[in-house]
């Protein structure tokens, strides 16, 4: 049952040059040589994403989620990173493309919004200026036209009195409004791919919901592909059509949101779900955390990277200690990288994990 291929969705082999999805990431590896050793932040990641759909990438800090998104945008070029693999965006391969070419796509075809809008926006320039700049670098328009467009975008993201606020500075906005402004800036050139890196982590809960609504509305309006990166399963539950769970630079589970939430098959995912407080269940005595801490990306554990923390490690020993598990399809559209037998996993899920959720 274990296929030697590492491709998801259409299961197309790696060396086939014809991508079918809008965003097609194949065996992406991003390594950073440092004085302490080679940091393997992303180590063989593959997934796809279509326009109009939302992919949620979930994982702990250090799992490689942000590095992945920066890697897709090509922001690691010139930073001493070793990037290999392929990233196909709308039929174009980006990893081997020239940095100049990728730069021109950045902001225009693919855009990103960041976690902390206060530090991510330049404090010295007004919001209007920054949006105008983002717009004019990709479109030949006059300043006046760009300004009109900026005001328009601010209105669209729900900022009241946009023609007055366009000349305000980032520090003059509240947290929520600031994030909306950043979204306005990211969407100013109508990107087809929007990557949101922890967009609500810095905001309070009520504002969170508003922002997520906004993203969903805009996605519907522009038909963009959205990648949302977070450690918060609640956010993912709200927004994502598909979920990708990352651990130690690799994908460990992929599937539709419904599948992953109701029929998760990877012990790590089980751990994530267990550690999430839920309102629709009885209150437990305590939350169940995942034992241990994230692994070093320089000295990744042998075999299955999760094995030191896995409750069920002995059940798949000695394989989990020696061989890296490969992503395999269990049910249609649902892949898992684990050495446990599928039947074993489902049993464990229904018997041991699910009741406690």
């Amino acid at each position, binding site marked *: 049952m274990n296929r030697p291929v590492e491709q998801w969705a259409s299961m197309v082999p790696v060396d086939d040059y014809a991508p079918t999805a809008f965003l097609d990431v194949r065996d992406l590896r991003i390594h950073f040589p440092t004085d302490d050793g080679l940091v393997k932040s992303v180590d063989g990641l593959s997934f796809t994403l279509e326009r109009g759909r939302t992919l949620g990438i979930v994982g702990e800090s250090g799992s490689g989620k942000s590095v992945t998104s920066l890697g897709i945008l090509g922001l690691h070029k010139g930073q001493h990173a070793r990037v290999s693999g392929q990233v196909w965006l709308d039929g174009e391969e980006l990893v081997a493309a020239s940095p100049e070419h990728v730069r021109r796509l950045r*902001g225009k075809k693919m855009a990103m919004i960041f976690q902390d809008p206060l530090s991510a926006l330049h404090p010295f320039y007004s919001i209007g200026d920054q949006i105008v700049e983002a717009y004019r*670098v990709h479109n030949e328009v006059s300043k006046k036209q760009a300004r009109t467009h900026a005001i328009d975008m601010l209105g669209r993201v729900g900022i009241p009195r946009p023609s007055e606020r366009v000349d305000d500075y980032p520090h003059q906005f509240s947290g929520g409004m600031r994030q909306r402004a950043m979204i306005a800036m990211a969407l100013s050139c109508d990107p087809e791919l929007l990557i949101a890196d922890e967009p609500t982590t810095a905001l309070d809960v009520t504002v969170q919901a508003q922002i997520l609504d906004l993203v969903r509305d805009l996605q519907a309006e522009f038909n963009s592909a959205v990648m949302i990166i977070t450690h918060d399963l609640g956010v993912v539950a709200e927004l994502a059509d598909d979920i990708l769970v990352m651990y130690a630079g690799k994908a460990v589970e992929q599937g539709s949101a419904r599948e992953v939430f109701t029929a998760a098959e990877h012990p790590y995912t089980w751990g994530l779900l267990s550690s999430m407080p839920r309102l629709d269940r009885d209150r437990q005595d305590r939350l169940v955390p995942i034992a241990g801490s994230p692994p070093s990306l320089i000295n990744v554990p042998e075999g299955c990277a999760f094995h030191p923390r896995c409750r069920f490690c002995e059940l798949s020993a000695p394989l989990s200690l020696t061989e890296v598990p490969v992503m395999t399809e269990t049910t249609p559209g649902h892949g898992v990288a684990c050495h446990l037998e599928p039947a074993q996993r489902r049993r464990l899920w229904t018997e041991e994990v699910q009741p406690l959720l």
Partner: protein
Amino acid sequence: MAAFIVRRLLAAVILLVVVSMMTFAIFFLVPKLAGMNSDQMALRYVGRGATAESIQATKERLHLDDPLPVQYGRFVQGIVVGDEFNYGPEVVKCPPPCFGYSFRNSQPVTALLIDRIPVTASLAFGAAILWLVGGVSIGVLSALRRGSVFDRAAMSTALAGVSLPIYFTGLLSLALFAYHWKLWPNGVNYVPFTTNPLDWAYNLILPWVTLAFLYAALYARLTRASMLETMNEDYIRTARAKGLPERTVVVKHGMRASLTPILTIFGLDVGLLLGGAVLTESTFSLPGLGQLVVDAVFGNDLPIVLGVVMVASVFVILANLVVDVLYAALDPRVRL
């Protein structure tokens, strides 16, 4: 903004008063504490053939016996209303602002100051432009090429520049460029800008470069550190994510933010220099405020010391003011 400036100007006046009082106090009280009386102070200004009469006459002429508040009052009066001076056969009016007359050679201090400010200003501004452009560009390049040969070479040179005293580099450059290679066959002699701009610049090149070398080194190191910090900021990553060309990212986003602290220090440095670049002026024999005040201090010439201290204080206060206003203009988070 206007209210802010007005408040600062008021504070400036108070500060000037305090500084002048302290200068008076130091000049008169310190010798008193050391056991000097006014006769002995008067002896400083009389030739070797001092007689009791000339000592007494000098004391009266210089008002050395008057109580301090009276002397101070006369000083303030001079600045506000003007003063009179007895040259001997006639009495001359000194229009406000009158800083008095040199104890040593009876020259009007105000005229001296006016004469020397352009020299110090020429030196300070010329060197300032050189070191700002040179130091900042080297600092930025070093930061962008961190760890490279250029970076290491630049920072080593900067270390040398910061460590070598001006007196040394000045004399060395004079010996080498002026006298040995005869690029400046007549040495360095200040020529006013109004007399001949080319000569003015020609004579100031060596002092400019010597002074700028020291500061450029400082600024290169500062800029490098500031740039490195700034380029790690999140908004730089955002700028790149927007697809901006790297040049725009570095210049418009990076430098704008990293240079703000540099500019404030620059303003203060120039303000201080305008009070007299003492070492440079002495080494190159430039007749500026620095040379003037050093001689006045050694020669116990209070009116000149007071005058230069006042002028220097005004420059520093103005520089602080300009810097604060500039900072507010550059960084919208700082509002006055």
